[in-house]
């Protein structure tokens, strides 16, 4: 008798579990689809802020950045992606020392692995990663960018 009961309950349990599985897929059938139709939806496309697409150096409205040309980012980069070229500028006050300042900050996107080490180690938070991802070019040389803008200078520390 027990065997017959087990047989019947096994069938009913099986039917119940199959039906619950099918109800899950039926719900999935009607929910909104997750596919992103990329080139058409560029206007509404949402890319996470944490996505690392491209290294940038933020400049404020006075065309000033925070880079002191210390070169720590360049030293930490595993691929030699960053090249910091510095220059010496004349002292602004009488009798002062000449200061080291940023001349050109060269970033090669084609070598970058987007590991974020440069941003982490920067002592003055001068650089960051942006989520722009449409970086493809026809030649590798176009991937080499200068991050500091023309005529920009170091932001003075607020005392």
């Amino acid at each position: 008798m027990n065997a017959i009961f087990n047989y019947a309950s096994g069938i009913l349990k099986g039917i119940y579990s199959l039906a619950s599985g099918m109800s899950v897929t039926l719900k999935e059938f009607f929910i909104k689809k997750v596919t992103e139709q990329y080139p058409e939806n560029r206007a509404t496309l949402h890319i996470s802020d944490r996505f690392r697409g491209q290294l940038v150096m933020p400049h404020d409205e006075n065309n000033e950045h925070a880079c002191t040309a210390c070169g720590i980012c360049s030293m930490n980069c595993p691929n030699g992606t960053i090249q910091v070229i510095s220059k010496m500028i004349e002292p602004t006050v009488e009798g002062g020392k000449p200061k080291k300042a940023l001349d050109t900050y060269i970033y090669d996107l084609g070598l970058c692995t987007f590991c974020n080490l440069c941003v982490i180690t920067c002592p003055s938070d001068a650089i960051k990663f942006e989520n722009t991802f449409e970086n493809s070019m026809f030649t590798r040389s176009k991937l080499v960018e200068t991050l500091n803008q023309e005529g920009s200078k170091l932001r003075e520390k607020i005392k």
Partner: protein
Amino acid sequence: MFDFSTLTSGFDQFLRGAMPEFWALTIEFVLVGVILLTLYAVLALILIYFERKICAAFQCRIGPNRVGIWGVFQSIADMIKILLKEIIPINHTDKFLFYLAPFFVIAASFMTFGAIPFGKGLQVFDFNIGVFYLLAVSSLGVIGILLAGWSSNNKYSMIGAMRSGAQLISYELSAGLSMLTVVVLAGTMQLSTIVENQHNTWYLFQGHISTVIAFVVYLIAGHAETNRGPFDLPEAESELTAGYHTEYSGIQFGFYYLAEYMNMFVIAAIATTVFLGGWMPFHITGFDGFNTIMDYIPSPIWFFAKAFVMMFISLWVRWTFPRLRIDQLLNLEWKYLLPINMVNLLLMVILVLFGWIL
């Protein structure tokens, strides 16, 4: 309701009047063959598109949407691609059987088209053993599968073919017995009579719980016969690369692909004809106005609508459940479906004997 047999018999009269009987018959045979082949190919294209869209929706995707509006020309593009592909000759195969096998598979699924009533008067052959013929012919495909596995000279193909053979022979029993349940209820095997008998109520409702059980069992067994998931272990990709059609390429592979989809249609069409009234519109006894409105919808539309609902259920099952193991597969058949079917057949005999049917 428009009867298509007036059209066909009128054409027959015209041909017989214009030429001797031999030539009239020859022209009719060729025409029927061409029409059925076209229907077969077009249906396969529609089915492949249908499956890809439904499968995408179950996986929360959109599916093909680049070729034509909503991607409707995707399967046509795929067909052109597969026709242009090279057939790679394989060394160390049994050449004759290797090239013969795809034709067995495709002929088996094509031959069922001769007996399926697509609409009122739209039936090529009206046998008095129609159900028997459908079952016999639709299970011929296993010969092609076994030949393909054997002649490929490949262990994966061989294992796939053997599994397919075990599976088809087992599930053919359940499909046959559930059909037999309906034959007991109908008292005939002639498909046209079976459809006519469902004028007021479909067989699904006529035999109370008994036909519902037979219907579910037939759907499971039929689904297993088409070698599609969750019963797709003859072509289990993760274990057997592609099973019995591993060594095939180009249009030969296309034949297997086509036959798989058309078998799905054939199973849906048989289930529609036998349980859901075929081309017969949905009638409720007593609601005469409703019944007349239903009669205005042409019979082929009824048939194909029901068949596509059946195929949707088949796809729903396919994209829900994981693949069975071979022992689970045979357990399901021999320990569950077959005993249930036997008891169900007995129940149906009792119902019919006492006249407890709608």
